């Protein structure tokens, strides 16, 4: 049965991820693109791409997504990747720009306080474009220039379109315009709370992890405590801090002077530090345990003392894993800081809870989207730093 064999091999050669992305993209064209509401709080009426921006542009979208689908079947790997990358890199900004221009047209014909929110079609379209870019970038390792273009063109195009005000008629942009000053303040609060807590957490967790690795007696209590903290819901942990800290600050007014009070930054910072402990303690422990005895023997053979061994053999070898723990803790902390807005510590959760209170979905998004972006940026920067921090001999293994 030669025909069947041929078919199965062709199927195995096609890019399943790309096919998924292209199918998702085609699906997005069938979903509502925008949702027009007579006011900020009213219910939305769905608007499809064709009626938002006209059949011509909608047709172009359809053709590009179909081209991406065809490229998914292309057996020439490089040609396929180039087409997919170009399609994704163009579709991502085009999706947002179409939503922005569509909103402008719709609002011109609507009531004065009408709002136009991005709907499922836009979000699915963006995810689908990201899938195409992602799979293309993986296949383009051999063409660095093209690869960088495919990755950075959409980012730049989306940013430039944003700065030139193309999205200014979407409800999300209007929420942002209404809160711009506050946004910068809460963003910097969010960053300093989440990363500051991890910095303090690292200073506590690395010695704890070292103690756990060195002493059997310390190991159990340290892990029991760190894991138990991790199971407490964040709002509850924030709540637990309030009573003892208030009592402390009343007993010692000096503490209040330096900003340690029952509500606000202090309880949030302490709770976030506690949360950051487990991943770092755990990775420090594993990192030190996994240092090969041969490396230690070699060090001893060179006449190193115990502190020298720790400084020049153990910790450098464990560093990538410890840093990996810091990365996990940081990403987790960026998310956890959101809840801090409920105890007066501010942060991007401010907009999320305000939006929930007013039942204004776009205000919620204005808080939630930057949290996601921040987590991604922290993740990428830390991965890059970890790759650079690893001892040269370990680099190949470190990135797993």
């Amino acid at each position: 049965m030669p025909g069947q064999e041929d078919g199965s091999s062709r199927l195995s050669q096609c890019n399943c991820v790309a096919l998924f992305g292209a199918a998702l993209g085609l699906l997005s064209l069938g979903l509502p693109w925008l949702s027009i509401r007579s006011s900020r709080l009213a219910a939305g009426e769905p608007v499809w791409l064709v009626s938002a921006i006209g059949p011509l542009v909608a047709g172009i979208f359809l053709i590009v997504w179909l081209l991406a689908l065809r490229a998914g079947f292309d057996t020439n790997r490089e040609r396929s990747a180039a087409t997919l990358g170009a399609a994704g890199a163009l579709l991502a900004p085009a999706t947002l720009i179409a939503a922005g221009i569509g909103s402008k047209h719709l609002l011109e014909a609507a009531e004065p306080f009408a709002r136009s929110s991005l709907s499922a079609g836009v979000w699915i379209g963006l995810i689908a474009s990201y899938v195409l870019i992602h799979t293309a970038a993986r296949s383009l390792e051999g063409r660095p220039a093209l690869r960088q273009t495919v990755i950075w063109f959409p980012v730049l195009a989306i940013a430039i379109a944003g700065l030139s005000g193309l999205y200014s008629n979407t409800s999300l942009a209007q929420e942002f315009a209404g809160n711009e000053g506050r946004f910068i303040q809460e963003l910097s609060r969010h960053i300093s709370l989440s990363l500051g807590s991890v910095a303090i957490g690292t200073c506590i967790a690395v010695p704890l992890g070292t103690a756990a690795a060195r002493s059997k007696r310390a190991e159990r209590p340290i892990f029991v405590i760190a894991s138990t903290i991790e199971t407490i819901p964040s709002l509850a942990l924030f709540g637990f801090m309030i009573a003892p800290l208030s009592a402390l600050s009343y007993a010692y007014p000096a503490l209040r002077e330096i900003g340690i009070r029952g509500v606000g930054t202090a309880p949030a910072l302490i709770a976030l530090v506690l949360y950051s402990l487990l991943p770092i303690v755990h990775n420090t422990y594993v990192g030190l345990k996994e240092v090969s005895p041969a490396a230690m023997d070699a060090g001893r053979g060179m006449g190193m003392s115990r502190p020298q061994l720790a400084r020049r053999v153990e910790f450098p070898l464990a560093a990538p894993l410890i840093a990996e723990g810091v990365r996990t803790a940081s990403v987790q902390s960026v998310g956890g800081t959101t809840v801090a807005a409920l105890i007066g510590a501010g942060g991007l959760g401010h907009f999320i809870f305000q939006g929930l209170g007013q039942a204004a979905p776009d205000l919620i998004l204005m808080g939630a989207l930057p949290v996601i972006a921040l987590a991604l940026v922290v993740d990428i920067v830390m991965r890059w730093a970890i790759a650079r921090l690893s001892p040269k001999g370990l680099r190949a293994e470190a990135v797993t």
Partner: protein
Amino acid sequence: MRTRKAFIAVSMLITLSLLLGCAGAGGKEPIVVGSKIDTEGALLAQTILLLLDDAGIPVEDRSHFGPTDIVRKALLSGEIDLYPEYTGSGAYFFEGTDPGIWKDADAAYAEVARLDLETNNIVWLQPAPANNTWAIAVTSTLADAEGLETLDDLAAYLNAGGEFKIACSEEFVTSPPALPTFQDAYGFELTDDQLLVLAGGNTAQTEQAAAQGTDGVNAAMAYGTDGSLSALNLVVLTDPRGAQPVYEPAPIVRSEVFEAYPEMADILAPAFESMDLVTLQTLNAKIAFEGQDARDVALEYLTQQGFL
């Protein structure tokens, strides 16, 4: 070399973020103004900030600080110096007081101002004559069809077997001053089928549910000064029997801060006196419904009225 560069970059990032966090401490002591995490809290906080700033008093904006318990704790612990609170909340802060007192605007203000100064060293300034109390709002369709204006009308309609379903929060159903008080005062009883309890429900959500008729809902738990009521075509039923405590918003301030700037009483009073129920509803609507910035709304109002 690259290792060290990356290390330096990361540690600089961390140091910078720590510094950002500590910035703001030290320097001249401004009045820290907080507020609850709702629309009216933001509006009143911005009003206070603009007026104080205009009078040359240094201020710091910590509005939208948190829910009532948190803002209150922040004031008591000195994390914030001033925030707008409601007179009727005195019934909640000071247990064991006569419940009748809180239903009279002037008596409630006098009582809470006295108790808070004696026990917590907190000064209550001039309140706004607007009652932001718990209320029941119905769709204007229902109100017009059945001629509902007061809670008495509602009780008659309900007892005659009229169709009714209200969106509300758990607290509204269980908290003694809310629904139970309405039921006792006006003589009606809602069955479980007539309640749509929204988890963590606030009035923005309940009002939206009523306006959209979600799940057959035609009424909503509301607060008297909610801005979205008229825009969503909802009508608040009046409370002729005075079943509810009066909730008038007033700036409250720690007495040591008040003594440092006693002129703030005269700076804030005229603006608060001018904010009646309709004014607050209108201003709240500009924030919640039109999506304007609370500061812009406050600035526009204060400028128009000649307070700035």
